[in-house]
């Protein structure tokens, strides 16, 4: 058995044309030009870039096309794009621009068969289910529209259903922890890990180096999505990977 591999993903929330950052997905603050941040992270050795168009499903449009077009010219690592993907055509458009995976949340909740339809066409490996989770008294509820809308769906039941429909990965965002620097919601990650065979990307709450290893220790967590910690230059990609490495995980240096 080899050491477990962990990817470090930089998550760039976009309100076109800017990179923004909020707390619990709210109170958005403009950080700057997403292209500069993406190139910087690529140079630093980040393993993947995740773009999320945070207003797309609200206004029913995707404004990320130009951002992707620029990124793929210079960034030769996997790119995942989420926000505003409402149809098979939206998905194939984004992939044909050079993105490797699409992340889908709101439209999948409204129309679960869309997951199967997209996966059949482009392959499961290109379909990431984005799940925005808020803690309830018991379990977690799925939210859409960037944490604004309740769905009434239980996170574990929803992910189990989506796994059958053909997703390739789960991006699990704890809305409660997002932007708070209080650490990932480990109980949430563990609960989802127990009921899937899929890789999980942990998102929301990274604030200290040891938070990375705590999430990485959950069996199906194979990647960490980090926004705040990188955007505010509180940590470098190398520091995060170094910590993971010294805690016994394998990382690409």
């Amino acid at each position, binding site marked *: 058995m080899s050491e477990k*591999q962990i990817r470090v993903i930089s998550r760039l929330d976009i309100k076109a044309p800017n990179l923004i950052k909020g707390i619990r997905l709210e109170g958005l603050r403009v950080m700057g030009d997403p292209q500069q941040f993406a190139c910087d992270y690529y140079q630093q050795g980040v*393993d993947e870039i995740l773009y999320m168009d945070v207003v797309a499903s609200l206004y029913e449009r995707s404004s990320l096309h130009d951002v992707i077009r620029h990124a*793929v010219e210079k960034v*030769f*690592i996997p790119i995942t794009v989420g926000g505003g993907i409402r149809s098979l055509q939206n998905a194939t458009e984004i992939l044909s621009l050079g993105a490797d995976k699409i992340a889908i949340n709101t439209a999948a909740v409204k129309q679960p068969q869309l997951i199967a339809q997209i996966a059949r066409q482009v392959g499961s490996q290109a379909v990431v289910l984005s799940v925005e989770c808020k803690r309830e008294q018991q379990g977690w509820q799925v939210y859409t529209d960037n944490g604004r809308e309740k769905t009434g769906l239980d996170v574990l039941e929803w992910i189990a259903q989506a796994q059958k429909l053909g997703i*390739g990965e789960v991006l699990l965002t704890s809305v409660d922890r997002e932007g708070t620097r209080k650490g990932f919601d480990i109980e949430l990650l563990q609960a989802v890990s127990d009921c899937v*065979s899929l890789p999980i990307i942990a998102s929301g709450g990274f604030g200290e180096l040891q938070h990375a290893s705590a999430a990485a220790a959950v069996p199906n967590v*194979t990647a960490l999505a980090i926004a705040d910690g990188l955007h505010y230059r509180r940590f470098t990609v190398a520091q995060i990977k170094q910590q993971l490495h010294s805690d016994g995980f394998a990382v690409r240096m």
Partner: protein
Amino acid sequence: MIQVIDTRTNNLSNVLRALSACQYQYQVISGASELRTGSVVVLPGVGAFASCMASLQDTGLTSALKAHLACGGKLLGICVGMQAMAKFSTEFGQHSGLAIVDAQVEHIAATTEQKVITPNVNWLPLQVNSKRFAHFAGSYVYFVHSFHMCHFRQPEVVAASVKYGDQNLCAIVEQGNVIGFQFHPEKSGAVGLEILAHSLHLLQNMQTVPLSHTA
């Protein structure tokens, strides 16, 4: 001459950008009649095995590619483009491949007893068996796949592998005038571009000997 087959999969543009970044000129082709004698043909692919094969079949490239190789042409396959070289795949039923490499394609979970996370979406370090890729031993490259090439009749064609759980997954196939990558060199950062350029260089400078055997 580098000719890239348009199999209507979504990573074509990424492969083309990577070729440009490596300073290679290329031509995109979509039919058997466009194949040029002795050229290096690049076969990219993502998604399902069957749709990749159907695309080759529709354009007459299934038989034309074999004839191309028999006349000393070269082939570089990426991801499903490499898997297409096998005899068959069991992805969504059993589908025939080009049968250039005597191997088959199976689900990662089907070839291990252990609980395994699939798809394999990871950067993994290469364990290199071939002298021609020795320079890349330990290099991390990016994988995203649920099926892998296995049951090789001639295990020596596995030029590099990676460890995944308790399995060794084939990462690079090298057989005569054919090279295949299970990973995505076009998405593996600077080292990925180096491996791509190195492999094209190897193929271009190879003596155009006809393929000694087919599976």
